[in-house]
């Protein structure tokens, strides 16, 4: 493996993993924009990830797509076998497993171990080398169960029935996970969404998820908007305090993200309610997972690398930082 300007490169496979520049052969772990760029030649990814890329970019962007179901093996180069294992991050997210000359390397991509009904749960794959993310790699990050945070939200909706609860979420993954978690908590009201969230939510529906009744805010007539009092509206984080939110009746800004554990981050967003909902592994899970894979070497791609490196070394694991560039921590959610 090598770190090149285009991204992480696997020499014997002649392929990049999640390259951030167009390359001839790419393995794409999941559909978030900073991992799945357009313009590659051949793209190895799960069918769901390819669908997401097709929705986000043009059909042509993934013309060279090779769909690999989880656990389906393919020999991508002489003596190099690739297969994908579930990563539990978002719909279609995968770890890339490369077997070569009797040894194995697993590239986790972004992953989490907390429950998420929108995707297949993370699977521990025993390996020699584990390449991990470190987005939330500090002991201050412990993500609570999502049910706990949904409960917090619903309590607020009940106590402040005049306020329209406006939740800032990432369009891919977070939005749909939250919608489903609300349904699981027994919330039956119509959910309202910002236009930027529509296409991907529809894609999730095509792929078999049921979010109950939901509507686009823009489809409501001006006179109907007052009906959004006491209702839940989802929007991209950038729309929370933008002109768009002025049309809503007394909006209460809510932010759903793993960063919301830090008070200053909540203030920065001007959020009045902070939901700690993360699609990444928290501190304990990052360490637990690295240990469970049995890897003797752990390479850390992006995030709070120093802390994870330090903690893994203390556990006798050879850990090192790869210093990959081009991962935007705020958007990595």
């Amino acid at each position: 493996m090598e770190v090149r300007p285009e991204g992480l490169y696997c020499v014997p496979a002649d392929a990049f993993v999640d390259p951030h520049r167009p390359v001839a052969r790419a393995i794409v772990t999941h559909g978030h924009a900073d991992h799945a760029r357009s313009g590659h030649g051949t793209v190895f990814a799960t069918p769901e990830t390819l669908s997401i890329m097709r929705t986000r970019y043009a059909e042509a962007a993934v013309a060279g797509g090779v769909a690999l179901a989880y656990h389906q093996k393919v020999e991508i180069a002489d003596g190099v076998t690739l297969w994908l294992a579930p990563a539990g991050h978002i719909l279609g997210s995968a770890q890339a497993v490369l077997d070569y000359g009797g040894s194995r390397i697993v590239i986790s991509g972004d992953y989490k171990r907390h429950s998420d009904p929108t995707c297949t749960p993370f699977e521990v794959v025993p390996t020699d080398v584990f390449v991990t993310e470190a987005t939330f790699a500090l002991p201050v990050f412990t993500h609570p169960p999502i049910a706990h945070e949904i409960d917090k939200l619903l309590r607020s909706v009940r106590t402040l029935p005049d306020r329209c609860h406006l939740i800032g979420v990432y369009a891919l993954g977070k939005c749909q996970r939250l919608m489903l978690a609300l349904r699981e908590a027994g919330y039956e009201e119509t959910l309202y969404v910002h236009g930027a969230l529509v296409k991907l939510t529809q894609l999730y529906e095509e792929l078999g998820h049921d979010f109950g009744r939901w509507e686009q805010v823009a489809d409501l007539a001006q006179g109907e908007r007052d009906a959004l009092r006491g209702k839940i509206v989802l929007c991209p984080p950038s729309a929370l305090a933008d002109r768009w939110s002025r049309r809503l009746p007394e909006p209460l800004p809510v932010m759903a993200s793993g960063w919301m554990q830090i008070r200053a981050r909540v203030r920065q967003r001007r959020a009045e309610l902070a939901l700690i909902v993360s699609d990444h592994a928290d501190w304990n899970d990052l360490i637990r997972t690295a240990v469970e894979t049995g890897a003797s070497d752990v390479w850390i791609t992006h995030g709070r690398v120093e802390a994870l490196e330090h903690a893994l070394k203390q556990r006798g694991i050879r850990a090192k930082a790869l210093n990959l560039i081009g991962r935007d921590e705020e958007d990595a959610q």
Partner: protein
Amino acid sequence: MRRFAQLLDDIYFTNSTRAKEKILATYLAETPDPDRGWALAAIAGTLKFDLFKRNLTKTLITERMDEELFALSYDYVGELSETVALAWPVNTPADTLPALSEIISSFQRKGKTEIQAYLAELLDMMTPPERWALLKLGTRGLRIGMSARSVKRTLANVKGVDLPVIEELWHGLEPPYETLFAWIEGRAEMPDISQALVFSPVMLAHPIDEDSELARISGETHVAEWKWDGIRIQISANSSGARLFSRTGDDISHSFPDLIEAVDFDAVIDGELLVKVDGAIGAFNDLQQRLNKKKPSKALMAELPAHVIVYDILRLGENDPRALPLTERRDVLQAFMSDVVLERFSLSDFLEFETSDDLRALREQAASTGSLIEGLMIKDKSSPYVAGRPKHHWYKWKRDPMLLDAVLMYAQRGHGKRSSYFSDYTFGLWGPEDQLLPIGKAYFGFTDEELKQLDRWIRAHKLQRFGPVQEVEKELVFEVAFDGAQESKRHKSGYALRFPRISRIRWDKPAEEADRIEALAALVSA
């Protein structure tokens, strides 16, 4: 304790002041004594002791956590209590926590070594927000965006009385305020605070309406005094001691021990706090060096001794002259002044005048004092001393503001209702190399309609972004009004404005024609 931590979080994350007050009122109604009184004290900042030292928190966490991981966490979070609250390794919240009051009294009862064990035991039982609440409470470092004034207004609203009623009581009472709540709930009489050194709400003036009111003023019916540019204060003293209060009732005695030491009377007086520089009254800029200093050094006190220009008297011994007309109160005040330390206290002069034209001339004279005197006070001779801002008793007539044409450089989003608008503006003047030098920031002085226009203009003229700060094209000119300016090392331009606001938006004026920094320099040296 659990309910208290919830209260702090609710207030902390709520943006609107009114909503915060509603949350506090609900808590006070639902929570028994003495917990609610301690909570009130914690929020209003009236707790008199630390439960434990800040350093103890650090000791405890370093005993429990890898040093490097703690350092990395602390770096990231940027704040000790929150870092410890989040990184504390035991995470098994107990079903119930001791009451807030029980925790406070336990800490007070325990010796040093016991305190350490007790704090650790509590932190083990808590969730991260509860730990944060405890650590902030214990070291009196709560900052949840609610002022003491807002706390008092909450109490006033609950009882259905005016704010001054609460303010008058407030400084005579101590946490956990059980007598206060008994009165608020109608179970007891109003607490007796006659022996306490309390703050009495002050009397304030209206700006004079030059068209309608000025003509009615004459030397027969009114007196005139200089309006000094210091801070309005009140000193309350008796045989037990003396306290210095700001206009809003904050006790600022600790910053001015030199003044407190010179108090040797049994009275309540109203005046302007200033400092002396080489024996003469100094400007606001000089006073500023002593404000907010918790423990001023002897050298600083010798260099800038505190001085009070006395305006009025609210109590002398047993005698309460507040209901008397101003001229009779003045007799009481003059009698009082014959006994005080003259280096520290002087009587505010009544200025000689007969007609409003004389006043106009005096106001011109005020404008020529640099920023020492900011205008005139005009008071009805028959006015009693009434808390608040009663109509037609006292007027202030500030000298004209200084004006400059400055160019808008950066904009920032506002708070609360204005959070979706760019409503905070930084503007600058042209410097020696034809670059703009920022001279100040203003977020009022325009109408709601103008705010919308400005917001649109800014969105259409965006340049770079620095975190929350949006740089804009240097094309829009503001006429900026301000009450004074002083040299300042903190600002790149070398000047700081006093009380800047937008007086007009000069949509018509090309940016090149805005003022240069020399124009400001000339105003400062005038």
